[in-house]
């Protein structure tokens, strides 16, 4: 069985190499047969990798512990969903997941565009399969999941495996890595189209629409993956937070930031033919940051709770990045003439300039995170000693950047495209700015003294009012014309321009996320050792240890103190944080007890027995507003889905006329105009 898996990977490698050669030679030598067979080779790669994945999953579920990967990541006591999750629980399996997702994306892209972009598709296939070949080299020759455990000349069957890392035996880990990988891998689609457009010097912007849609889909997956990772960190690691500026967390954030910048600046290319070089740089950076993130996780260059053990694969990633970046830079530089802007910025007071600021700020954030992440590597290279920057560095740099971005989230929609006068800006800004100031002043009066918290809440109010006014004014314009009520008009408004109003909903989600992040300014925590019957107080909560339970099943043993909780004297349900000890891996883990509310979370971690064995050590956290982080995500997701729905547009141009016309047609006014429905 395992031989068939290894053969499938080897064959997939051969087909991927053929697809590169076939598509490019087919294009250059004008042999459509070769180009078509190269596209079919893409489907074959997918089918072969699907077979390999099927075999690996079967081995994990059935428990074929002769295979080194199965032995290292699975055991007979694990539940089915964790046996499936073991696919990406180790280095070899997760690289196979990367490869399989890439093959799946490639097959979808080829199928979707089988009758379109005939000129570009050979290059798209070339880029996709070049990357696929790289990962297949890793799957087949460097980190094969089908290696067997051998003693001497014979294969050894070990009765049971070590099992999945207990930290990964949590429900979000079943979906967090696939989601994050769907994001990471998916960014190859916009990159492949961008490179193909450069190679063929595509006239027009049709390809950029395809690129934008793919970026939006993969951005959605990446957002989901990052948020699920935050949920996992919050619930499993037991330190009371959801984001620790860990190198691997940062690695997932970097391409998200550049993709966000691209999703904004691409509008300028679509509308005005501007920022073409910049967009190429963003698309390429996003893709290479994804590869870089994968490299960080797997090479052992940085220490992280997420990192896989140090292996030999780092140098392969460095090689791929070096070749890929060199070719991309060369291609961009050789096509600068083709990438020339078609128009200029007309005014500083315009939507275009707000997008440019947004891009600069996002880039500054990206650079700050990258710098902090690579600082240990840089210091080791220069000084021979690894110096890590910690959470306060990241917070100090990124909080002001975040504030500025939040401000621009509100400013952008208020400014018109091309130009705005100071007077109209004053009118547009008045209510949102007053609301923001009012919220900040009210919170100050209520006793809040944290500068950034006051600023953040004020800006959140500013953005929310901005978006509300946008929806209200738009709906009122439709309502005034159609006679429909405001709610129906608002729905109609969104349906007419899903991209714009879906985008506004995403902004609302981001605001809600910021509300949640700002709550961290008021976090309280303490660590105490309590005897049976002992109690402690944190904030409004009083906790009393009233008992202790322990037991075991075949996978792990567990112990949990019973904690009676009161808030302002009112009794709340009993909370029981748990410590587990997994037998197979000899590893302890913590299952926190969490009371979630919209205003604050009470988070209790049982760190273990105290000096006296009957004592318990508790880490207690009161985290305000954390629930808004998760709510914000759902709003972001909803807004993104709205953006992906096609707009309802009827192009009717009955009224507006061209005021200037060619000399040939002078005196014969051409009827052109704007969509009446939109007005």
């Amino acid at each position: 069985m395992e031989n068939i898996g290894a053969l499938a990977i080897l064959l997939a490698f051969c087909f991927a190499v053929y697809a590169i050669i076939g598509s490019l030679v087919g294009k250059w030598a004008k042999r459509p047969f070769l180009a078509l067979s190269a596209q079919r080779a893409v489907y074959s790669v997918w089918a072969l990798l699907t077979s390999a994945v099927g075999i690996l999953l079967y081995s994990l579920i059935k428990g074929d512990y002769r295979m080194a990967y199965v032995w290292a990541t699975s055991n007979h006591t694990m539940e089915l969903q964790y046996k499936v999750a073991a696919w990406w629980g180790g280095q070899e399996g997760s690289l196979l997941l990367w490869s399989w997702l890439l093959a799946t994306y490639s097959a979808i892209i080829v199928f979707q565009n089988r009758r379109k972009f005939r000129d570009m598709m050979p290059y798209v296939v070339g880029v996709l399969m070049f990357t696929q070949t790289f990962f297949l080299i890793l799957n087949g020759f460097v980190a094969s999941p089908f290696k067997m455990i051998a003693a001497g000349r014979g294969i050894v069957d070990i009765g049971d495996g070590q099992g999945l890392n207990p930290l990964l035996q949590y429900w979000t880990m079943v979906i967090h890595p696939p989601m994050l990988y769907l994001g990471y891998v998916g960014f190859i689609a916009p990159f492949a189209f961008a490179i193909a457009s450069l190679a063929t010097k595509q006239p027009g912007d049709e390809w950029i629409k395809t690129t934008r849609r793919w970026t939006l889909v993969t951005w959605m997956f990446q957002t989901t993956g990052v948020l699920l990772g935050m949920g996992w960190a919050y619930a499993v690691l037991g330190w009371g937070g959801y984001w620790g500026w860990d190198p691997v967390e940062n690695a997932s954030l970097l391409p998200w930031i550049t993709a966000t910048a691209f999703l904004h600046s691409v509008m300028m290319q679509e509308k005005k033919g501007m920022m073409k070089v910049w967009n190429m740089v963003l698309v390429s950076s996003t893709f290479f940051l994804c590869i870089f993130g994968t490299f960080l996780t797997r090479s052992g260059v940085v220490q992280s709770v997420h990192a896989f053990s140090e292996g030999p694969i780092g140098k392969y990633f460095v090689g791929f990045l070096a070749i890929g970046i060199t070719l991309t830079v060369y291609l961009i530089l050789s096509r600068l003439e083709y990438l020339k802007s078609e128009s200029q910025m007309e005014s500083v007071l315009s939507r275009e300039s707000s997008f440019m600021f947004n891009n600069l700020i996002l880039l500054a954030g990206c650079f700050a995170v990258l710098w902090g992440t690579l600082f240990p590597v840089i210091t080791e290279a220069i000084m021979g000693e690894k110096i890590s920057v910690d959470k306060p560095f990241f917070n100090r740099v990124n909080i002001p950047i975040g504030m500025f971005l939040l401000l621009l989230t509100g400013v952008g929609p208020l400014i018109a495209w091309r130009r705005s006068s100071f007077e109209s800006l004053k009118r547009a800004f008045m209510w949102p700015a007053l609301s923001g100031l009012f919220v900040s002043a009210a919170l100050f009066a209520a006793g809040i003294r944290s500068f950034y918290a006051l600023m953040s809440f004020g800006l959140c109010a500013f953005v929310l009012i901005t978006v509300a006014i946008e929806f209200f004014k738009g709906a009122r314009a439709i309502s005034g014309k159609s006679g429909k009520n405001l709610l129906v008009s608002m729905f109609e408004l969104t349906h007419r321009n899903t991209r714009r109003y879906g985008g506004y909903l995403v902004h609302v989600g981001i605001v809600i996320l910021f509300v949640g992040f700002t709550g961290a300014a008021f976090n309280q925590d303490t660590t105490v050792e309590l005897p049976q019957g002992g109690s402690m107080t944190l904030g409004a909560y009083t906790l009393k240890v009233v008992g202790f339970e322990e037991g075991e099943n075949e996978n792990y043993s567990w112990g949990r103190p019973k904690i009676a909780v009161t808030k302002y004297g009112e009794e709340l349900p009993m909370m029981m944080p748990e410590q587990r000890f997994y037998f197979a891996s000899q590893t302890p883990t913590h299952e926190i007890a969490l009371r979630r509310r919209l205003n604050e979370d009470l988070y209790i971690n049982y760190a273990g027995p105290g000096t006296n064995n009957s004592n318990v050590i508790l880490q207690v956290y009161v985290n305000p507003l954390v629930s808004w982080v998760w709510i914000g995500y759902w709003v972001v997701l909803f807004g993104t889905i709205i953006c992906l729905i096609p707009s309802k547009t009827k192009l009717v141009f009955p009224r507006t006329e061209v005021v200037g016309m060619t000399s040939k047609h002078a005196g014969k006014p051409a009827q052109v105009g704007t969509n009446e429905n939109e007005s």
Partner: protein
Amino acid sequence: MLLAAAILLIAVTVLFTFSIRDKDMPAPEPLSPTRHLDERRAAIYENLRDLQFEYRVGKLSDADYQQTKVGLQKELAGVLAEIEKVSSGAPPTPVKVETPKVTPGTVCPHCSATFPQPLKFCGECGKEMS
């Protein structure tokens, strides 16, 4: 059994990839020489639509609206002329844009909107034209 499975895997994928018949070849993609101009035209229409909408919701002053609208319309006229030239096979030439003569009652004194025939009230802002 193992050998048979391996042979089957190889045979199926090789056959699928390379057994291409004439009828499998895709029909040539219809190529329009004006495709990129058509896309540009659609983008300008969309910009005009956005502009009108932003004006209606009060994001633009009358003067900004008129100035931007005229700019976009001139751009559109250029693209339309270019499309016609490309369609008729003539080599594309730079487009001369002329502004039509203004006759009384056709330009709004309040918002500068222009109309082909004299009007009593402005079709854009609703104010008196005189």
